[in-house]
Structure formats: structure tokens, C-alpha cells
């Protein structure tokens, strides 16, 4: 039956699953009652229990495996790991109970309890199942069943070897283990030659356990993302059990922490494996597990180091002061406290680095790569633009792109100021406040599965990113200024060409034609032909008048005299007077800086020229307002709209002029809704 079918069936009868999970778990937990009872009955006989220490450890182990197993089975009934943990607790509990019952019955009650020998025999043959179940749990983790052919083979081998070892151990029989070495096993119906089967079974068990261990290490190496988290949590649990057992024994050898202390420590260690298993399966999205383990190790090591330093200091200082005064201990304690306190932070930093290097190698390597870059950056040995390449290398995502949102314009820029583009299907991580991000990282979605690494690396990269962003911004502004300067120069040249053209086509042509007609008159006069002097003078006077008007027009276009002499308001009224469309002018202004007045005036005159040429407007309103801080200019018409502000150099040149004065201008021109050209300039009157 595959897992999907199992799940479906289990969903069908949830009460049954719940009952099975709770019932089997509780049954195992209840085994503690007779175990405790037998322990109390046999407490005076040293041969019956293994002492309070190992009883406590056993009890904790049974309770934690059954408890966690039952919890897992309730939450993930389709996952075999929960049920296997319950079975582990059951085997452990039954083995312990049978052993105690056998010892109590045979040793304390001289065999008058029923089935004591049988119970002892069976109990002494339960151990193969502990190993077989362990291997089964490992190969079933975390999917809940052995999903690959290799893992299925290990599972079958473990179960077969467990069965063979257990069954042949019972069937062959022999003397029981101490302290029941004087008794022979209960069911010896096979000859001694079958001892070989026991041997084969043990070898099989050993092979299965080793194969399962190798398999999980290989899977851990290959795993990515969520599976890696699960396996890591599981591996931490598995690692901490033997580690804390060794630590406990070493500690007990150095300082007498008493049986209770050892019991608590060992019990705690044994609880870790099922606990880590449960965390891995149920809460693998609880990414902080790495950090919790990391912190635990850091503070554990720190406490041990500082505690030892403290003790050493108190002892040596006490000895030292004893030669000087009678009761030196408070002083010695105080001094030692000060020294140890002072050592706390630097020692903590070192321990943290050491632990990071060992337990969070990836994060450690990535963060230190970025930190080293930041140091080289401070020392001027790297350009900040390299931050993108450094982050790509640190996070092992060659496609990673650092992008800065530009203040103006929607496009993203990379640290070199080019348009930034992430790979298709990349995800975005925002660095800095969401409203005003320092930078965006466009990266492979797989990095999101390691938010710890990503978070630590981006935190370390914050300053270099900020520097790179500022450089991009400054470069962008510089480019804008350069472009605007070039446009201003170009506009100036265009303006000169226009003036040259106007002179050439206007006044100059009129004057040339006039010169020719005067030549004709002279030739006629010389040749004695009659010349109509009145007509000639009328024509000449008219041509000269027209030429003067052309030149006036030209001079006004270059810089209106009324603007220079009477200011913006009068110049706007003069502009209105000579415009063929009716114009309303609202301008009540003091005299302002000549540059500002000129910019505002040319905005109006350019807009009015465009309206007359293109807008087909019937009215036009020019408004100029000054609030003491800024000058606001607008020209609004009721024409056809649809003007393109980027077309035609006149308005673009004006935008540069406004920008150069620290102001801004804009054109709003929706088709059919008229056109509004407006601008504002900072100015103090």
C-alpha cells in the first residue's frame, strides 16, 4: 500500500488512528508503573535493579520515545517514524520490565513467581529489535517510509536480522546473562550448532545499522533546502546523544555531580533524539533550529569555560591572599567575578566564531567573505561596485544580481549603473526598509530555503550596498547634469542658428531686394528713363519699415526689453497683447531675479507660440504667482491637447533651464482636454 492510499484510509477513520496512537503510546508509558513497582520491591537487593541512575535513564528513554512517537503518530499518521518510535519505546519498556520481573522472581523470590525464567529469557533477547528499529527509523526519515531501493533493502535487512537474532537467540538458549548466570534459558529447542544463526543475525544487524548511518550521511551531503533542514535537526539530535553522554562521564570524573546530576544529564541527552526527530518532521519550517542549537552550544561552552576560569581564579587568589590577610575569600571572589565578567564579551565572540565555523559553516564562510570585502572596501582596496560579485560568490548563486531602485524612473540599476535584470524566475529579497530599500537582490529561489544564511549575509553586506547605492545615485545625477549641460549647449547653438536664419530670411532679404530696386532706379535714371520717384520712395519706406519690424521681432525673441525694464508681469501682458488668441493674464508680482524672470517668461512665450501654432484654442490663461519662496507659472489653453512634451526642442530646453535653477516644469496634455504647461522655481523676493 502506498503512502497516499494509507493516508486516504487513515483520513477515513481518524478516530481509529487517534485511538491507536494514544492507546499504544499510553500502553508503553504505563509499563513504567510495574517497572517502578518492581524497582521499589527489589530496592534492597543490589542485583535486581541497575541502580537508580540507570533506572532513571531507562524511564526517561522509554517515556520520551513513546511520548514523541505517539505525538508524531497523531500528527502524521501516514509517517512510519512515529509508529516506529512507539515500537522502540515498547521494546525498551518490555525488555526492562521482563528483565526486572525475571531477576525479582528468580533472585528475590527464589522462582516462585510464574514465568520468571521465561520473562527473563525473552527480555534478554529484545535488544536486537532496538538496533533494527533504529535502522528502520533512520531509513524511513524524513518521508515516513524508505523511498529509495537502497533504503528499502536496508529496512528489509534490518527487520530480517532483528527477527533472526531475536528468534535464534531464544531458540538456541544458553546460560542467561549476569546476574542470572546460574540459570539456563527457558526455551532451548535448537542445538548449539544454531549459535551460528545468532552470529549471522548480529552481523546483519550491524551491517544494517552501519548502512543506515552511511545512507543518512550521504543524504545529508546531497540534500538541499527543506530536506537538509530536517536531516540536520535529526543529525544534531543523533550527534548530541553520544556527545552529552561522554561529557556527562567526563564531568562526573572531574566534579562529583552526583547520581541525580548524571541521571538528569543523560536522560536529557536521550530525550534529544526523539525530540529532534519530532522537530524535524513537524516543524521543519522552524528554521531557527540551527540557531537554537548554535546558541545552546555557544552558551554551554561559554559557561564551562568561564566557570572553570572563575573557579581557578578564586582558588588561586584565595591562596595568594591567605598569605596577606586572615579571611580573603570575599575579596578573591569579587576580583574573580570582575575578571570573568570582563572576559565575557571577547570570549563569547571567540566561542561564537568557533562554533559558527563548526556548526554553521556555510553561513560562517558566506558572512566572513562579505565582511572581508567590507574591510578591504574601508581600506580602499576594492571598489564598492564589486559587492554584486562578492554576494553571488558568498551565496553561491552565480545568477545573483544586486539592483538599486532609481529615484527617478522605474528601472533598476546594477552597481555599475547599467540596467539590472535578474534571471527568469528569480525571486527578490529586499535589503533595508521596505518603503525605501537600500538594494534588491534578484536571486535563485533556492536561497529562500536558507533564510538564516541569506539574512546574515545581507546584514553583513548592508554598508557596502549602501555605499554602492550612493555611488550609483551620484553617478546617475552626474550623468543627468552632463546630459542637461550638453542639451543647454545644443539649445544655445540651435537658438543661434534660428536667429541667423531669421535675420537671413527676414530683414536681410528685404534690405537686399531694396538695394536691387534702388540700383534699378539709378540705372533708369542714368539712362534717362523716367523714374516714378513717389512710388519708389513709398516702396522703399514700406520695405524699410518691414525690415525694422523684423528686427524688432527678432530682438524681442532674443530678450524682450520690457522684461528687462518692467519685469515679468508687464512682459507677460505685452506677450498677451500681441498674441492672436484672447489671453487672460493673472500676474501680480514683485521684480525677481533676472534669470528667474527670463525662465518664467520663456516658458510662457514658448507655450503661447505652441498654442497659436498647434492647439486651435479659443482662450488661453497665463498665471504667475509668487508666495515669497517659490514662483509658480502656468499656461493653460482649451485647445485640442495631445501635445508631446518630449517633441520639439523648445520645451525640453526650458526643462533644462528650470532644472538648472533648481525648479521643475511639466506638461499635461490629454487629447481633447487642452494643454497645461506649468513650472515652479525656488526664489526669495
Amino acid at each position, binding site marked *: 500500500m502506498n503512502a497516499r492510499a494509507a493516508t486516504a484510509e487513515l483520513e477515513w477513520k481518524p478516530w481509529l488512528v487517534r485511538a491507536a496512537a494514544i492507546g499504544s503510546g499510553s500502553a508503553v508509558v504505563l509499563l513504567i508503573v510495574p517497572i517502578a513497582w518492581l524497582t521499589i520491591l527489589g530496592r534492597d537487593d543490589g542485583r535486581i535493579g541497575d541502580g537508580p541512575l540507570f533506572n532513571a535513564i531507562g524511564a526517561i528513554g522509554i517515556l520520551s520515545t513513546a511520548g514523541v512517537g505517539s505525538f508524531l503518530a497523531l500528527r502524521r499518521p501516514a509517517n512510519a517514524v512515529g509508529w516506529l518510535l512507539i515500537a522502540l519505546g515498547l521494546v525498551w519498556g518490555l525488555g526492562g520490565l521482563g528483565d526486572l520481573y525475571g531477576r525479582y522472581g528468580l533472585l528475590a523470590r527464589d522462582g516462585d513467581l510464574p514465568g520468571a525464567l521465561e520473562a527473563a529469557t525473552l527480555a534478554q533477547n529484545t535488544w536486537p529489535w532496538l538496533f533494527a528499529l533504529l535502522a528502520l527509523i533512520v531509513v524511513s526519515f524524513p518521508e515516513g517510509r524508505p523511498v529509495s531501493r537502497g533504503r528499502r533493502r536496508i529496512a528489509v535487512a534490518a527487520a530480517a536480522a532483528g527477527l533472526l537474532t531475536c528468534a535464534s537467540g531464544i531458540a538456541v538458549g544458553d546460560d542467561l546473562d549476569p546476574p542470572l548466570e546460574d540459570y539456563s534459558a527457558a526455551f532451548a529447542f535448537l542445538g548449539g550448532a544454531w549459535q551460528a544463526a545468532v552470529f549471522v543475525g548480529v552481523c546483519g544487524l550491524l551491517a544494517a545499522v552501519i548502512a543506515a548511518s552511511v545512507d543518512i550521511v550521504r543524504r545529508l551531503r546531497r540534500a538541499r533546502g527543506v530536506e537538509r533542514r530536517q536531516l540536520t535537526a535529526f543529525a544534531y539530535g543523533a550527534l548530541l546523544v553520544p556527545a552529552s553522554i561522554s561529557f556527562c562521564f567526563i564531568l562526573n570524573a572531574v566534579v562529583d555531580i552526583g547520581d541525580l546530576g548524571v541521571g538528569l544529564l543523560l536522560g536529557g541527552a536521550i530525550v534529544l533524539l526523539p525530540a529532534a526527530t519530532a522537530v524535524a518532521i513537524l516543524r521543519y519550517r522552524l528554521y531557527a533550529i540551527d540557531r537554537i542549537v548554535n546558541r545552546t552550544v555557544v552558551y554551554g561552552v561559554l559557561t564551562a569555560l568561564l566557570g572553570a576560569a572563575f573557579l581557578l581564579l578564586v582558588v588561586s587568589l584565595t591562596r595568594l591572599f591567605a598569605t596577606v590577610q586572615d579571611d580573603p575569600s570575599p575579596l578573591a571572589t569579587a576580583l574573580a567575578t570582575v575578571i570573568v565578567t570582563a572576559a565575557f564579551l571577547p570570549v563569547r565572540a571567540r566561542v561564537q566564531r568557533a562554533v559558527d565555523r563548526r556548526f554553521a559553516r556555510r553561513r560562517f564562510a558566506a558572512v566572513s567573505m562579505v565582511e572581508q570585502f567590507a574591510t578591504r572596501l574601508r581600506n580602499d582596496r576594492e571598489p564598492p561596485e564589486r559587492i554584486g560579485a562578492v554576494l553571488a560568490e558568498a551565496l553561491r548563486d552565480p545568477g545573483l544580481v544586486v539592483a538599486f531602485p532609481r529615484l527617478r524612473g522605474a528601472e533598476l540599476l546594477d552597481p555599475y549603473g547599467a540596467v539590472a535584470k535578474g534571471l527568469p524566475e528569480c525571486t527578490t529579497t529586499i535589503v533595508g526598509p521596505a518603503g525605501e530599500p537600500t538594494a534588491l537582490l534578484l536571486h535563485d529561489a533556492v536561497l529562500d530555503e536558507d533564510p538564516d544564511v541569506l539574512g546574515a549575509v545581507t546584514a553583513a553586506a548592508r554598508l557596502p550596498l549602501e555605499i554602492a547605492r550612493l555611488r550609483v545615485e551620484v553617478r546617475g545625477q552626474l550623468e543627468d547634469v552632463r546630459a542637461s549641460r550638453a542639451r543647454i549647449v545644443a539649445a544655445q547653438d540651435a537658438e543661434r542658428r534660428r536667429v541667423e536664419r531669421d535675420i*537671413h530670411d527676414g530683414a536681410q532679404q*528685404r534690405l*537686399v*531686394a531694396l*538695394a*536691387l530696386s534702388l*540700383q*534699378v532706379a539709378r*540705372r*533708369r535714371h542714368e539712362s534717362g528713363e523716367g523714374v516714378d520717384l513717389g512710388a519708389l520712395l513709398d516702396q522703399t519706406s514700406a520695405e524699410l519699415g518691414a525690415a525694422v519690424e523684423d528686427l524688432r521681432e527678432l530682438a524681442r525673441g532674443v530678450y524682450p526689453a520690457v522684461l528687462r525694464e518692467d519685469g515679468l508681469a508687464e512682459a507677460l501682458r505685452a506677450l498677451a497683447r500681441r498674441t492672436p488668441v484672447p489671453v487672460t493674464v493673472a500676474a501680480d508680482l514683485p521684480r525677481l531675479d533676472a534669470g528667474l524672470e527670463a525662465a518664467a517668461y520663456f516658458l510662457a512665450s514658448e507655450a503661447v507660440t505652441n498654442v497659436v501654432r498647434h492647439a486651435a484654442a479659443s482662450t488661453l490663461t497665463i498665471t504667475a504667482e509668487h508666495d515669497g519662496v517659490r514662483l509658480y507659472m502656468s499656461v493653460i489653453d482649451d485647445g485640442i491637447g495631445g501635445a508631446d512634451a518630449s517633441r520639439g526642442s523648445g520645451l525640453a530646453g526650458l526643462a533644462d533651464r528650470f532644472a538648472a535653477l533648481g525648479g521643475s516644469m511639466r506638461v499635461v496634455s490629454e487629447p481633447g482636454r487642452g494643454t497645461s504647461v506649468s513650472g515652479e522655481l525656488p526664489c526669495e523676493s
Partner: protein
Amino acid sequence: MRTLVIVDDHAGFRSSARELLELDAFEVVGEAGDGAAALAAVARLAPEVVLLDIGLPDMSGFEVSERLALAGTGTIVVLVSSRSPDQISVRATRCGAAGFIAKDDLSGAALEALLAGAA
């Protein structure tokens, strides 16, 4: 009488020039306001001389002159402009034109002198 076509986009100049040159025994056989019309007029009228303004709306007088030279019409091209002579491009000497006269210096005598020098 030499036949002449006047090419200029300013009608005022064309009429003044026609009046002046006709006094000096030139026969103005046609006028044109831009380069295309000039090419058509020369092809149709085959004048001895074409008085050609440099700044025409559709193409420059240089280009008109080059095309006439390529077409091998035999018409003598005289460039005119209201610009001062120091502002005339070096193209004036390479476009096949016989010479240049500033508009305000234009007269039958000046034109005759230039044609005599070219011949």
C-alpha cells in the same frame, strides 16, 4: 542677348533681379522658387546662364549645380546669396558653378564680368 533663369525662394529678389538684369540686355526666360523647379526649368528652357541662390528650401544651390553639371546641360551656373562672400562654402568652387556674386553686388556688369572671366 544671353538667356537667363533666376532661381530664388524670395519672390521679391526674383522680380528685382529680373528688372535689373533686363536693363542690362539679359533675357530672363524663366524663374524658379526651389531646386526641383530649377532643374525642370533648366532642362526645359536650356538657358545660357542660371542665377542660382545657395539657400533653397528643398536642396542647396550647390546640389542643384552639381546635378546640372552631371546632366551636361552646358548652362553656366552663377551662385548668388545674401551672405557675405567670406561665408560661402568651399563647395561653391567644386560644384561646377562658374562663380559667385553677393546679392547686393548684383548687376548686369558684374554678371558680364564674371561670365567673361569664366569663358
